[in-house]
């Protein structure tokens, strides 16, 4: 045992240069991907025109563009909203995944594994069935998503056995229950209008992205993301287990509830505008943990940025790969499911 501490802590103990570099690189990739995405598509837009149209969004700026009126309409009403929405949803799903993994002390959780996405889908399907408007659809998505997560939390806290597996299994059961509910709403839906609406919506796609969607979800998304960002250091302590966290001075019930509510809010908002896009919330936090470490002070921002860029790039692939668009949920599943299998075989589960 050493005597009185002789010197101040070396400065590099608390800085993580690698994490800082990773965040900068991820940000550059995300911005570059967004810029390139603006130009890509069936109707290519010249870089100069795209830049001019972007700058024109700033009040009192009016630059002459060489783009046709048709190209401008496409740019403002289709391409730009879609890119913004892909960034937002990727950011939200990844942040929610990271937050759920922390509060459930479980590396194998994500919004879709916990049943939050399926819960949101059921809530939204019921709202569509009843012919409600878009605000009610989002509200119902949130209510059912939170019900699903709380059910998983309740069941896994009562079940015996390996905690990691219990959470995953109860999540699977709740998801299946919610999916059955969705199937039932489809069964009784009107095949002429509500059935196709529900079916297409569930597929997980950014095709129909428009400015109205963004306006509707931006507030709940911002609220949830800010809450998660501000509380991110405390999530670390929750991962130590409830009793230990409490003796460290953390009101675990309050912190867990706020984190779960915020993560569910951003999940439900995402599902409400794009349908179910699975696996992003599992894959991205894991990749970030490999790059910047487990500390949520670095992990959460890194996940948000990587998630945004990741979903945007996957969405680009989904709209450009073939002439008929591939729903993005299919692509993320192709990436995510093998990754999950890799995770469960790679390390010992405790």
């Amino acid at each position, binding site marked *: *045992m050493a005597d009185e501490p002789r010197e101040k802590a070396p400065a590099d103990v608390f800085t993580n240069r690698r994490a800082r570099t990773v965040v900068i690189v991820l940000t550059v990739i995300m911005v570059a991907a967004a810029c390139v995405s603006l130009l890509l598509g069936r109707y290519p837009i010249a870089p100069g025109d795209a830049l001019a149209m972007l700058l024109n969004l700033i009040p009192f700026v009016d630059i002459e563009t060489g783009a046709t009126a048709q190209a401008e309409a496409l740019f403002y009403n289709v391409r730009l909203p879609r890119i913004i929405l892909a960034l937002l949803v990727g950011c939200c799903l990844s942040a929610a995944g990271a937050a759920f993994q922390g509060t459930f*002390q479980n590396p194998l959780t994500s919004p879709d594994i916990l049943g939050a996405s399926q819960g949101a889908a059921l809530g939204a399907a019921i709202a569509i069935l009843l012919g409600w408007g878009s605000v009610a659809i989002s509200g119902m998505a949130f209510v059912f998503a939170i019900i699903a997560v709380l059910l998983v939390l309740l069941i896994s806290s009562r079940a015996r056995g390996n905690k990691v597996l219990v959470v995953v299994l109860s999540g699977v059961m709740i998801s299946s229950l919610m999916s059955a509910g969705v199937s039932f709403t489809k069964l009784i839906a009107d095949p002429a209008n509500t059935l196709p609406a529900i079916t297409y919506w569930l597929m997980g796609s950014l095709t129909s992205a428009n400015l109205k969607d963004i306006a509707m979800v931006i507030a709940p998304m911002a609220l949830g993301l800010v809450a998660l960002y501000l509380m991110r250091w405390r999530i670390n302590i929750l991962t130590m287990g409830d009793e*230990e966290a409490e*003796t460290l001075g953390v009101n675990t019930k309050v912190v867990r509830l706020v984190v779960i509510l915020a993560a569910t809010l951003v999940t439900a908002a995402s599902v409400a505008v794009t349908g179910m896009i699975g696996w992003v919330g599992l894959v991205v936090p894991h990749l970030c943990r490999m790059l910047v470490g487990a500390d949520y002070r670095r992990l959460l921002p890194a996940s948000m940025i990587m998630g945004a860029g990741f979903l945007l790039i996957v969405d680009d692939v989904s709209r450009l790969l073939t002439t008929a668009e591939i729903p993005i949920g299919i692509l993320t599943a192709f990436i995510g499911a093998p990754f999950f299998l890799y995770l469960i075989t790679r390390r010992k589960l405790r």
Partner: protein
Amino acid sequence: MSIEVKNLGFAFGDNQVLKGLDFTIPDKTLVNVLGHNGAGKTTLFKCLLGLYRNYTGTILVNGKDMRSLSVRQRAKEIAYIPQSHSSVFDYDVIDVVLMSAASDVGYIGQPKAEHKERAYAALEKVGIENLAKRPYTQISGGEQQLTLIARAIAQNAKTIIMDEPTSALDYGNTVRVLSCVRELSSEGMSIIQSTHQPDHAFLYSDSVLVIHEGELYAYGDPKDVITRELVGTIYGVDVEVTSLYGDKVRVCVPVKELGKMDKKGTRWFHSGQLKPHDS
């Protein structure tokens, strides 16, 4: 007084786990709590820590009723060191120690420079500052335990509770951890730790508190408390308490085992279960 317990009782439903406990622990004292598995040691600790609140009687920690304090205030009075455990995620050692700042910063706060200095100083104090940037999951069990001790030091509470801190450690780490604990208590902390080794109590405690069937069975100087009768009662083992080095230390020896040994000093040969040159 670090801890004052009056007429403490606790029940899980119909199962009365603790009955009428009365004791006080002065400041700067290292107390070992003995008792067989299920005797109520952990329950007592959880009551002291304020994790279990529906007990009867009163508990004062540093003069304060834990039930009237907020979670953060409780953490400033008393720190808890669990059995060494592996964390789910790979935190750096320094980040685990930094968690001690939770009682100081609000819901949306983050550790500040003073907390970082305090965390690093605590790591220096237990002598593992060279491990600061290593992943917590990849250091040895003894180093993990020292990390948790550093975290408790950085938490700045006057009282520390340790639940079987050495149960998962090998012999060398056990000695290192216990001697660190004793040094902390000599510097002014009150430390209450449970153990299954009566021998440890002779070396590493100022007083011994024995819980048996949920009651306070004995409490006092280790040399007065740990006797052949006591070990026989609480563990059901017949031992002889022998004194060494001019009674500076004592050890418990299970005397019945001595009789089973033959002249070669190995009982297994004698009972025929294993022969010396069997291949």
